[in-house]
């Protein structure tokens, strides 16, 4: 009788598993960034598209080649290399030569991720490492010659713009920064909608916020990190009198919602995340106000990344029951 019985695969429990997977999460992140990326292309022109494509290609190729070389299972479809390439592109000047973006993402994946052992093992946010590499290697292309917004692919709004609002704020003060961005749509509109000079993805706070909201709704991220980054920036720029300009500008939103919340390089418990976010926010403000860069969140996150594993050990989950102590 027994020989006719079917046999079944043995597997360890639990025998049910959530529908969520690493690659689904990554593709959701990528998808939520798409509106901001497309808007960047729309506002800044076709070079922005080349930068995005080159950056993604550099990331994907580097991951593929290094996995082939090491004899590892290729994991391109998990979407994380695409994510790094996309994020890097969104944080650079839309006028950056595409080959430089390609190099930047090669660095990001090669020396920021694969050399540590691949996804899950890297200490620093690869996209931000790539950006730091570009800042060091091509500082001129990264920080000047900003593309001017040219909505509807028409005439540039301001033919002579060469600096971002934050850079102008740093060098020439609030008035000049306001003047730079306020025509023709008004300062806050310009900051929210993206009609102002800046990195490809950072210009439209609105679209970044919508993407972030999608991730929140999908429970891929929580508010712990973004809110505490925000609080940190507000605290450390309050005395300048223009915290709103700081909060509404720069890579702050991309940084707070996408870079600082990167699972691998941020802490996992809520309390550690709050400490981490505050640290990023405070460092960002300090760099912007006292440091040499108008934009500080990139380095602030990289510094905080180094602390993430320690923060997880300092702020541990609360046990519901301790051995040997009835309550």
């Amino acid at each position: 009788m027994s020989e006719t019985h079917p046999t079944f695969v043995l597997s360890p429990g639990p025998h049910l598993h959530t529908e969520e997977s690493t690659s689904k999460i990554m593709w959701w992140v990528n998808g939520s960034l798409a509106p901001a990326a497309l808007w960047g292309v729309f506002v800044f022109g076709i070079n922005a598209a080349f930068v995005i494509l080159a950056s993604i290609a550099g990331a994907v190729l580097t991951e593929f080649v290094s996995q082939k070389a090491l004899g590892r299972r290729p994991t391109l479809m998990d979407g994380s290399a695409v994510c790094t390439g996309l994020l890097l592109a969104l944080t650079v000047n839309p006028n950056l030569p595409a080959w430089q973006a390609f190099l930047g993402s090669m660095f990001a994946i090669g020396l920021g991720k694969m050399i540590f052992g691949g996804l899950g093992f890297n200490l620093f946010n690869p996209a931000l490492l790539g950006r730091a590499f570009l800042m060091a290697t091509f500082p001129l292309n990264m920080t000047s010659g900003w593309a001017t917004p040219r909505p509807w692919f028409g005439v540039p709004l301001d033919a002579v713009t060469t600096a971002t609002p934050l850079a102008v704020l740093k060098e020439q003060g609030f008035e000049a920064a306001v003047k730079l961005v306020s025509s023709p749509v008004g300062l806050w509109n310009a900051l929210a909608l993206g009609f102002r000079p800046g990195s490809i993805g950072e210009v439209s706070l609105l679209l970044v916020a919508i993407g972030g909201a999608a991730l929140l709704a999908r429970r891929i991220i929580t508010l712990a990190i973004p809110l505490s980054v925000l609080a940190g920036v507000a605290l450390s720029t309050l005395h300048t009198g223009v915290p709103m300009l700081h909060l509404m500008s720069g890579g702050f939103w991309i940084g707070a919602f996408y870079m600082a919340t990167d699972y691998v390089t941020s802490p996992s418990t809520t309390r550690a995340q709050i400490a981490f976010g505050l640290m990023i926010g405070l460092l960002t403000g300090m760099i912007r106000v006292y440091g040499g860069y108008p934009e500080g969140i990139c380095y602030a996150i990289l510094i905080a990344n180094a602390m993430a594993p320690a923060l997880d050990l300092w702020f541990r989950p609360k046990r519901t029951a301790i051995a040997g102590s009835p309550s």
Partner: protein
Amino acid sequence: MTTATSSLHTFGRGGIHPGPHKEATASREIEDLPTPSEVVLPLLQHLGEPAEPCVKKGEMVRRGQKIAEGGKTGVPLHAPISGKIKPVDKRPHPTMAIAMSLAIGANVDAGPELEFPEDPEWRNLPLEESLSRVREAGIVGLGGAAFPTWRKLEFARAAKVDLLVMNGAECEPYLTSDYRVMLAYPTEIVEGSVLIAKIAGAKKVLIGVESDKPDAIEAIGKAAAALTDRSIPVEVVPCVARYPQGAEKQLVFAVSGRTVPARQLPSAVGVLVQNVATAQAVYDALRYRKPLLDRILTVTGPGIVQPRNVRAPLGASLADIVEFCGGIKPETHRMVAGGPMMGRSLPRLDVPLIKGMNGLVMLTGRGPLEDGFGACIRCGRCLDACPLGLEPDQVSVRVEVGRTLDCEPHGALDCYECGCCSYVCPSSRPLVQFMQVAKSALRRAAATRSAS
């Protein structure tokens, strides 16, 4: 005395909401398996020593007759069907592959089931007599653990528990057998609970039922209100439907607010936990001296043709039970005995039903580890899911790099393997197994230390 508490109770942190998957069998009444042609009774199907056969090959036995003695730590076995004893031999066992087992071939000449007349004194039995009836009836925990009930009761009494918590949570997805038992035998469960409370010395009974079973809550509540023996208050406590609401520690906290210390039993805070199906068995044992002969289980999952709640004689072949449920679909890939969260996957159907098996779930689709697993992406989901506040992520990465003995601060010794962490991990990491590896390494290291 029996009012259901208005707000829902639950445990403190963590937990998950896997799809309940109970629709397929929730509305199906308990159906009897036609008497099988053969039953196989492994001598060991619970913790403790194996049973010692007290019948000879070829002997005719009637359903209900004792066929093996329980010894000092175990429980006896009874003939679940009338028939002829086959020789004790090595036969397939669901979890031990092969084990010494008695078998009975059905035979009408053996006679009908023994009669179990009521003992009119059943409510006022002396303690010793009650305990011995529970023991003689072969009752083990029917929630899945299968620990001999008489020993658990004896232990609870010695530990001076004051509260009996009845587990009707049935938080495992797919399973509905406890639910159907609560609907079919509410009075037996409530009476049985009072009997258990008396044996254990508990002063109060709280019956925890998940709120997605309102009719069970109502049925049990009514039965409790109708109790004539009011010496021990019985209360139904509706709990949030959330896994692992039915885990002992979580349930005790949910219904009583008491926190069971890690690595200890509920008796540490004066609580005894029993499953509702066990209460029904205890009731039969004390009132009628009727031994445990059948087991009610849910046969379900996407791989079964006709999902059902089945009452089957112990020792019936799983193949017979599955056939009674229309057989399996060709795409059935895995079979789980028990609930899909904490149950075990079994390789084959030609094994007998044993006392602790409360469900049989036929699953399709690929299972855990069949496609490998990924690195920890430090997403923190496992931390949020663990009801105990342990750190399966930290344990897993330490085990991976060979630092098993560094896992104690992260809770490896406290883990009770509920599986919430593995369930939520987007990298499909076998976190429960990492916890097990760390736990056994730590225990072994501690044992070697204390031995030297």
